[in-house]
């Protein structure tokens, strides 16, 4: 509880510091609306009581009441409005921090995270519910306490003997709520877990639909799904029963106060201590209290949830930042790996690898699954640190260069990420290059072939994850994207696997003709591509097992010949 408060307070201070004006307005205007909301029912008493010769004329009283009632609603628009605006400002502030932390994070630290987990934290934990708590939740409770204090004050001033009876249910209700809270949270969690099991059943079944249909597993998976939905249904009902009881307890608890008022107010009236007008006012004040009490209860129950979310956000924000991207370009030159080694979890992923990509040369890395090809690509493109040895680009050692080298060593993955944006944006990624360079990137990557088939050429918007593009088109976009950064070395990680033979040949020719100085390091499973490169490096368990030209290796290296034969089959 104390810890929860500490986390929430820290975030409150950080998020509200830039907006003192809004904070002051929300705090102060709440005092105003609370006063008006209490004053409205308070005035009711005079309508009845003035019948027996009150000092205020009844018409003027009507005007006063109308003014207070309407004024209260109008002012409340600005109070609620301010809270609504700040909810969103806060959500935006938290999200900017989280996205910034992820984008700038050290790649080695980021690798430990699942993308789904990060996305969930960004969407849910750094989401509207948390922000709502940090603004609306807390300040509604502030307003609720003001109304509660005001209403009770009014009751005490008006008839001290009656007020305690009317107030009595509050501590009882809060106690009851506190008692049920833990169970309610547990049941809600159980319900969420049950429904994620249903989701699991769905994905397992339908991602294996061939086997299920062909092997007669239908009855089995159906029974499993029935079991999961039954659990989900029961868990949901259990959670709802409790939620419903808590809600209704509050609602009816306050109605019970009305009965107390009827008894003790009635008795007071009989004894002449309470006028009927005041009785009406008491009833009105009681009704005014219902929702504020609900809000106060809500604050208590939401605090732990908000704290959990904020702690999850903290974990992301605490990711260590990478070296800062200065946008500075380094001088081009040859890419060289010297005695490179990578170790992770006690395993030697790469060991003493020497490799050299001179300008304009093409070097292919081949090997079995797990031989260390992708680790090599990660090191070369700055996504992983070498444990020992050097990566050099011209005169510079990679470890001292800015992240990503400003695109000088440009990676093209096998399954590139396509942003839901225009093709142009996907190629440029916001880089400011001239049209001629862009045209060259589009031409060399063979993306040019696709333009006539795309509705708006480069301006065509592609769907989520590039859904509207074929595998080959996606790879061409990725190659153009890398070329648009005017790289010295292109790193193709099986990046031509979806291109057909003719297109791939055209790409290599265009690259040779238009960008003859660009060196290429490639991982490939294509037999035909291997015949094209200047040097083939065979990796076995992280070490260089053989190197040479393709034809040479076929003759001299049995392991390579076997691998090559298998590649032809796959």
């Amino acid at each position, binding site marked *: 509880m104390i810890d929860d408060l500490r986390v929430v307070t820290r975030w409150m201070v950080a998020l509200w510091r830039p907006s003192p004006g809004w904070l002051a307005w929300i705090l102060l205007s709440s005092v105003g609306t609370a006063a008006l909301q209490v004053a409205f029912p308070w005035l009711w008493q005079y309508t009845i009581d003035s019948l027996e010769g009150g000092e205020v004329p009844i018409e003027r009283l009507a005007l006063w009441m109308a003014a207070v009632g309407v004024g209260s609603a109008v002012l409340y628009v600005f109070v609620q409005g301010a809270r609504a605006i700040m909810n*969103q400002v806060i959500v935006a502030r938290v999200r900017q921090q989280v996205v910034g932390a992820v984008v700038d994070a050290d790649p080695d630290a980021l690798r430990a995270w699942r993308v789904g987990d990060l996305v969930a934290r960004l969407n849910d934990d750094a989401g509207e519910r948390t922000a709502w708590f940090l603004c609306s939740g807390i300040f509604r409770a502030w307003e609720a306490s003001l109304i509660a204090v005001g209403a009770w004050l009014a009751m005490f001033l008006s008839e001290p003997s009656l007020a305690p009876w009317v107030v009595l249910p509050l501590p009882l209700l809060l106690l009851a709520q506190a008692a049920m809270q833990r169970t309610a949270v547990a049941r809600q969690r159980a319900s969420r877990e049950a429904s994620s099991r249903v989701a699991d059943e769905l994905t397992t079944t339908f991602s294996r639909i061939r086997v299920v249909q062909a092997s007669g597993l239908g009855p089995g998976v159906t029974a499993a799904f029935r079991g999961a*939905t039954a659990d989900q249904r029961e868990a949901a009902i259990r959670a709802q029963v409790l939620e419903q009881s808590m809600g209704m307890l509050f609602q009816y608890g306050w109605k019970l106060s009305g009965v107390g008022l009827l008894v003790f107010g009635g008795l007071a009236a009989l004894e002449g201590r309470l006028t009927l007008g005041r009785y009406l006012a008491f009833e009105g004040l009681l009704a005014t209290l219902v929702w504020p009490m609900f809000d106060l209860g809500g604050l208590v129950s939401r605090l732990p949830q908000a704290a959990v979310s904020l702690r999850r956000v903290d974990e992301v924000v605490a990711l260590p930042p990478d070296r800062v991207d200065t946008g500075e370009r380094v001088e081009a030159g040859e890419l060289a790996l010297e005695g490179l080694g990578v170790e992770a979890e006690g395993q030697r992923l790469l060991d003493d690898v020497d490799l050299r990509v001179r300008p304009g040369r093409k070097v292919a890395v081949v090997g079995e699954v797990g031989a260390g090809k992708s680790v090599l690509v990660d090191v070369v493109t700055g996504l992983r640190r070498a444990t020992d040895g050097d990566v050099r680009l011209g005169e510079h050692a990679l470890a001292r260069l800015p992240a990503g080298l400003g695109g000088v060593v440009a990676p093209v993955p096998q399954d590139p990420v396509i942003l839901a944006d225009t093709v142009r944006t996907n190629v440029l990624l916001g880089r400011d290059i001239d049209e001629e360079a862009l045209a060259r990137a589009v031409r060399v990557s063979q993306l040019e072939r696709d333009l006539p088939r795309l509705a708006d050429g480069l301006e065509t918007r592609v769907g989520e994850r590039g859904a509207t593009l074929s595998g080959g088109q996606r790879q061409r976009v990725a190659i153009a994207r890398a070329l648009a950064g005017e790289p010295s070395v292109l790193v193709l990680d099986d990046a031509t696997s979806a291109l057909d033979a003719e297109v791939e040949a055209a790409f290599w020719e265009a690259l040779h003709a238009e960008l003859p100085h660009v060196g290429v390091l490639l991982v490939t499973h294509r037999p035909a591509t291997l015949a094209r490169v200047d040097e083939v490096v065979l990796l076995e368990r992280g070490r260089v097992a053989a190197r040479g030209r393709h034809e040479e290796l076929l003759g001299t290296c049995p392991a390579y010949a076997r691998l090559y034969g298998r590649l032809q089959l796959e």
Partner: protein
Amino acid sequence: MRSPLSRLAPLFRKHARLLGLGLAGMAAASGLQVLGPLVAAHAIDVALPAADRAGLLRDAGLVAVVLFLDFLVSFGARIALQIAAQRAMADLQERLFDHLLGLDVSFHDEVASGSLVGRVQSDTEALNVLFVEVVFALPADLLTVGAMMVVLGLRSPQIALPVFAVLPVYVLWFLLFRRIAPPYFVAQRKVVARLAGTMAETVRVASALRALGRQRWARERVATRIVEARRADVLSHLQPIWYFNGATAFRALATVAVLMIGAWRIDEGTASVGLLVIALSYLRQIFAPLMRMSNQLTTLERARAAAVRVTELLDRGPRIAEPEAPVPWPGLRDAITFEDVSFHYLEGTPVLDRVDLRIPAGSRLGIVGPTGSGKSTLLDLLLRFRDPVGGRVAIDGVALDELSLAELRRRTGLVLQDVRLLPGTVLDNLGGDAVAARSALDELGIDWPLERVVDDATLSRGERQLLTFARALARDPEVLVLDEATSAIDPATEHRVTEALERLLRGRTVIVVAHRLHTVRGCDQICVLRGGRIEECGPHEALVASGGLYAEMVRLQEAA
């Protein structure tokens, strides 16, 4: 054409009793809510002027009883309605699941299983909320409002007047809200979805963008979307605020009017304070459902969209179905034949191009070829996961689509590269027939108990492969279709897998897609597939002798 929402109504037929009970309870609660203030008013108007302490306490006790009954009945009714809705939605989920299970592989290849979770879970949840919060709540709300108007009108038309007057104002105000607000909600949902997409893709590409040195741009891109979403969010959240506070202002004016008219009438002696108490508490109660309506609007929109998606899915039938009068199949006698078979996913890019093949009963056919040559498609056609675009696949001269689909699948065993298991017991993974499962495991020399719980994480790849063999063997298929795994199996199980495979293949007609040449070496016939066409076919020796593509592959693999 009936609306998608009304088509879902029959789901409640099975739960009609519970539903009826719930709705009746809600109606009874409405009555009690109308009654409560009447009793309180009686105390004020009768007991107080007469200085009747006993009468006051009796009335107060009665109010407490009414309140308690109202609580019990409302609670019971709401729970009954929620249970009815939960059950109906669970029924719907099961119906959707059964339906999806019967849909073709072609459907499942197109639709990601993640989006099916959306249909089966999120959409039914949206419908659940609609039923509980709108459909079932509306009759009781209308009943309450109606009864209160009638009672009040009968007791004092003058005091009722402001309450009557404010109702049409409420309705107009709500119509205004319905006119103005929805576009902001729609815009907000769109922008928020877009932001969620951008955030997710930025996280996904974070490392790729770093490698290209574009972090700063990525941050700015998300920042733009965040600001865009903030604006739309604020605008949409301001809508209920003006609606709610406007309605509050109208209620305040009506309250003032009730008080003033009441005061005058009391002064005249034609009304009582009790009547005022009734009018004021009714005014509060009439207000509550009105406030709910602004939320219900969003609920309704969401549920309508969900209902459309759900019914669309239910309307979608399988393209591959059982024939009406299947030709009886006594078992494979002669041969499986591919006769001039063509297939494509997209017009103009053939995957299989006029393939002719004959697989005699009891023989083994091996298929080899590079990626994308059409090997897996060939298997899909053989199991009738898809139908050919041209030509036909036949068994003993009868086209597959004339045979019973269930029969075909029962007699044809399938072993895929995909060795993911269904989380559950060994028996679950072997199809549920304990006797057949045990004997299959015994035959393969696996001594695991059938109740052993298995999943992908606890078994090695080789062990899972063994289970897939047992799964096929348990059905004792005549024809066995096998897509050989590409990735390496741990050396510990490699030997067992090879042995088990040999036992599985023995005595059956086998079609195997191979990634290692030694797997197909012993086949009676080996076909090399390239670009959707059969390049060469024949036994191992003949193909090696002919010096074609196969011979070249063999030469390379045996270079060792």
